[in-house]
């Protein structure tokens, strides 16, 4: 029996995302997200008996959910996995995973201030996310000859997905060519500005439910086929080396963080990369897409650069990526909501309700979160067919 046979993704919701959400707070965004996801599932707040996510304590109080099972798993896929396990083990029936962020980071003179390391061995060297991920990308370029054009192809593909998406913060900003990407100013070599995630405000929520609690869902149910999370250490405190390993000198290096998680996810699902129809990959920086295709086994080591060329990852390609525009163009609402939004887009793809970049007949979606520059990478497999 599949461990998540009785766990259905019942509701999802993205409230409005924006560079700045005037008048909103993180809590108000998360409340809108939660209520929207419950409405999407045809459920009421009184049906909720579990909640997780970074604002779970406030949401429990403000929405009057208590007494309720509550956790604070924050980072997207781990929170979804926790909620799914909670239901699969019979400990909860309807669990909300919510995130929201607004009015938190107002320091516009700095780059991605929430990633500024408060750590003595990296802070004095002016590190921040783009530099962390650049050190990973540069090593791969050195080892395998990965090119600026290959990385820019990723960025153009993701940004063009956002360009046509009416709810994306950067809707209508494109279209972008590879040359446009390469002509944008350098932020942290090899990353040009248009190869980096935006910074914005926003939120989202997902409702998971035991299948027999939602027999009359207003839309196609989506199922959790498998998933796992990989962690190497705390983000942005230690040198992000490609070859960083744990105790096992022959173990998977940080450069391929996510590989163990992908193997476990595929094993639980009884599937492999060839069974995936759409790749909702986390896109903090262009190179991370190339790296994840290698880490997850879609191509061989060092083959990720050529793999993303020739239309494979674009509209109508074999493995369309990040179809709403992702962190580069849809939203990057701070620490956690963008990590959950890859899962939401995967659900929308499998429901067949995307108004743009719908992958026709999509049966299996792979969603991810994190990256090697941050020493973590998570994988979730979703499907239309009950496992």
């Amino acid at each position, binding site marked *: 029996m599949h461990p998540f046979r009785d766990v259905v993704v019942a509701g999802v919701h993205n409230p409005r995302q924006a560079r700045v959400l005037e008048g909103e707070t993180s809590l108000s965004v998360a409340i809108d997200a939660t209520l929207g996801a419950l409405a999407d599932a045809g459920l009421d707040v009184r049906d909720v008996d579990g909640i997780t996510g970074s604002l779970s304590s406030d949401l429990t109080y403000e929405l009057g959910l208590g007494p309720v099972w509550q956790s604070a798993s924050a980072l997207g896929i781990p929170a979804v996995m926790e909620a799914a396990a909670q239901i699969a083990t019979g400990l909860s029936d309807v669990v909300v995973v919510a995130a929201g962020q607004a009015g938190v980071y107002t320091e516009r*003179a*700095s*780059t991605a*201030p929430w990633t*500024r390391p*408060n750590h*003595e*061995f*990296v*802070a*004095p*060297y*002016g*590190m*921040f996310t*783009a*530099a962390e991920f*650049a*050190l*990973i990308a*540069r*090593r791969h370029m*050195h080892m395998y000859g990965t090119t*600026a054009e290959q990385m820019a192809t990723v960025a153009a593909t993701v940004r063009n997905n956002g360009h046509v998406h009416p709810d994306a913060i950067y809707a209508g900003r494109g279209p972008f060519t590879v040359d446009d990407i*390469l*002509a*944008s*100013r*350098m*932020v*942290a*070599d*090899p990353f*040009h500005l248009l190869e980096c995630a935006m910074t914005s405000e926003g939120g989202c929520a997902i409702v998971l439910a035991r299948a027999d609690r939602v027999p009359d869902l207003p839309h196609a149910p989506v199922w959790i086929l498998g998933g796992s999370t990989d962690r190497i250490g705390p983000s942005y405190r*230690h*040198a*992000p*080396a*490609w070859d*960083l390993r*744990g*105790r096992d*000198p022959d173990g998977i290096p940080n450069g391929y963080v996510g590989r163990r998680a992908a193997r476990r996810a595929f094993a639980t699902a009884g599937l492999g990369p060839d069974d995936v129809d759409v790749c909702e990959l986390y896109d903090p920086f262009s190179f991370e897409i190339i790296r994840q295709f290698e880490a997850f086994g879609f191509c061989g080591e060092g083959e990720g650069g050529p793999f993303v060329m020739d239309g494979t990852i674009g509209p109508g390609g074999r493995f369309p990526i990040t179809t709403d525009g992702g962190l580069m163009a849809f939203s990057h609402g701070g620490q956690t909501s963008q990590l959950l939004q890859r899962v939401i887009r995967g659900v929308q793809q499998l429901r067949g309700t995307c108004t743009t970049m719908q992958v026709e007949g999509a049966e299996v979606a792979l969603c991810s979160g994190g990256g090697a520059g941050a020493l973590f990478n998570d994988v979730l497999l979703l499907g239309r067919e009950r496992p």
Partner: protein
Amino acid sequence: MSPESAPTGDDRLVPQPATIPPPTPSSHSAPYWEAAARHELVYQRCDACKRAEFDPAVVCRRCGARALTWARSAGLGTVYSWTVVWRPQQPSFVVPYAPAIIDLDEGYQMLAAVIGCRVADLAVGLRVAVEFHPVADGFALPYFRPA
């Protein structure tokens, strides 16, 4: 670095001004910063498995032994990976600067920054040597210069 995106300014890599925020040592990293103030680069070596360990550890990250002994590095190594930051992470930093991971000859890696050359000189495999520069509160920060 494509020419059209290069700022018109200088592309020489120099140490940051001493006004950047100083490090905030912990109790087990204090020996590192005390040595740095004397312009000595140190690391830990595991008495049991001989692994070179950095940044400062409580137990050996490979074998778990608690007996870690501070040792002095010759400060020579090669660039393992590098980047050039063109937009400062915070206003006290002067761009461009070049964070890099250095492979020290003693067998460990550390994050630092490369100075004393131009952006175009940066490369994986570049031989470098440590050089200390002052920051606030009496601290000295190791940088690496082409050797």
